[in-house]
């Protein structure tokens, strides 16, 4: 056999598996990604903090620190951020919370010997001992009484506006039969018995009502609502579609009029009417038509006025959308 033929066969045998493996990895159009991504996609956004309308400034947590638009105002390795009492609270990778003003000035803040694992955007912190604390505007955290909770461990903490919801069970793997769900009202946790034995994936407050997206042990997804501080919950609808994966809390927002919009995967979303407590699931197109969600994580849906919302993505930057209008979300550049 000629030398050239041998070399050709060797090269082909090396290249073909490589080429096949490349094609299998494709989940989104490459050039569609390129043309839909603007300058804000250069940031790896870990948390969206707030939009300052007067300054037209987006505050967000990125891998390098806290940014105000394109300027890093607080460099550092932070994992969660909260906007509360006009202060910025940041949970660092060392488990300690620090306090800043929004111009980037550090303020004194006392952690004591507490080490935290999570800080929700509305200012609730979960310690490594699974105790709940709340930022209060003072120079230290305020412990939230957990006397009403049973002696289990908090496994999930979800948030919406000024509320938090915790789910608890005994140590170990998720056991649906053991899960108990509590809503924090003022300073007291109240059990929501109707949401025991399910995992709460989505939690949204809308005026005085509460809405939940749940997953049960048989892989059924359902929407529930409560209109009386959660002493009872009623099922709205079972939904066959799976929510976005790899997110702590299924992203949603209330448009301050009548609708809750829940972002799902694959450019689909669900819409719940607050007036009628009905849900339309698996809506495609509209604001989500140009959003490629296969591999992205939605960090937060931050409501603005007139039903507008800022959608912050981990890898794809910031988008402005309105689920009430049949127009695609627009990327925000700054």
């Amino acid at each position: 056999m000629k030398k050239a033929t041998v070399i050709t066969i060797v090269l082909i045998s090396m290249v073909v598996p490589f080429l096949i493996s490349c094609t299998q990895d494709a989940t989104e159009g490459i050039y569609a990604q390129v043309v839909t991504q603007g300058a804000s996609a250069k940031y790896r956004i870990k948390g969206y903090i707030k939009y300052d309308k007067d300054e037209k400034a987006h505050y967000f947590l990125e891998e390098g620190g806290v940014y105000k638009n394109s300027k890093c105002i607080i460099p550092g390795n932070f994992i969660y951020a909260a906007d509360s009492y006009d202060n910025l609270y940041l949970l660092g990778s060392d488990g300690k919370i620090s306090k800043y003003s929004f111009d980037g000035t550090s303020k004194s803040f006392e952690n004591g010997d507490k080490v935290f694992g999570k800080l929700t955007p509305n200012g609730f912190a979960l310690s490594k001992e699974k105790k709940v604390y709340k930022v209060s505007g003072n120079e230290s955290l305020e412990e939230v009484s957990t006397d009403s909770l049973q002696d289990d461990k908090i496994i999930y903490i979800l948030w919406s506006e000024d509320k938090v919801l915790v789910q608890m069970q005994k140590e170990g793997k998720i056991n649906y039969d053991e899960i108990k769900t509590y809503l924090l009202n003022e300073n007291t946790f109240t059990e929501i018995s109707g949401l025991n034995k399910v995992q709460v994936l989505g939690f949204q407050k809308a005026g005085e009502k509460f809405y939940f997206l749940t997953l049960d042990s048989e892989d059924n997804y359902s929407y529930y609502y409560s209109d009386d501080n959660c002493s009872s919950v009623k099922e709205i609808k079972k939904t066959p579609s799976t929510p976005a994966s790899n997110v702590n809390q299924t992203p949603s927002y209330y448009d301050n009029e009548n609708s809750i919009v829940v972002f799902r995967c694959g450019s689909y979303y669900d819409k719940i009417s607050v007036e009628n407590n009905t849900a339309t699931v698996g809506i495609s197109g509209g604001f989500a038509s140009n959003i490629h969600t296969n591999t992205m994580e939605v960090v937060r849906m931050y409501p603005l006025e007139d039903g507008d919302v800022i959608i912050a993505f981990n890898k794809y930057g910031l988008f402005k959308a309105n689920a009430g209008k049949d127009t695609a979300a627009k990327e925000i550049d700054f």
Partner: protein
Amino acid sequence: MKKSFVTIAAILLAVSLSPLFASDYYEKGNTFFTVKAGVTVPGFSKFTNNSEYGTKTLPKEMHTKIGGYGSLAYQVFTSPKLALGGEIGYDFNYTQSDKILTIVPMTVKLSYVPVQTGKFDFAVNSALGVTYNRYNDTKFLMPFVSITCCPSVYVGNNWGLGLDLGLWLNAELHSDELKKDNAIVGIMPLTFALTYRK
């Protein structure tokens, strides 16, 4: 557009048939080894199944900056005017979001050299193959075709320096739910070509 192509083809034909260039410098079996380096300018991207994206032109609309390209090519003359071989290259372009779009063309290359005086060559190159493309975490293979022209000046018997420019067409084709992202992308390379001939 069609008129321009006809005009260029007529000029090339006239030049190649003129008495000045009647005698061929190359023979069957001569070889080219070419190293190229230069820039690539995003020209257009046309999304065939998505009217919302439509057609984007030039770097600003395509969200893609001017990039860099380098390649190696080896060709053998199969006749005095035709050389056949292969080329492998590496292209990178930063996008508006400061991420790198990578294109690795792997092609079979056919060159037609109508003008060959020994000191000066004018070659029309066509290439057909595939590109390995990578952006964010997405990798995809695309069919690729290019046509370029390259005037070259030779110093001595072996070494020549040319300027290669033309058009690449990279086609992103999906048959599944990503069909809406199908696109044809045109990129204009402008590279220096250092050739060693034997």
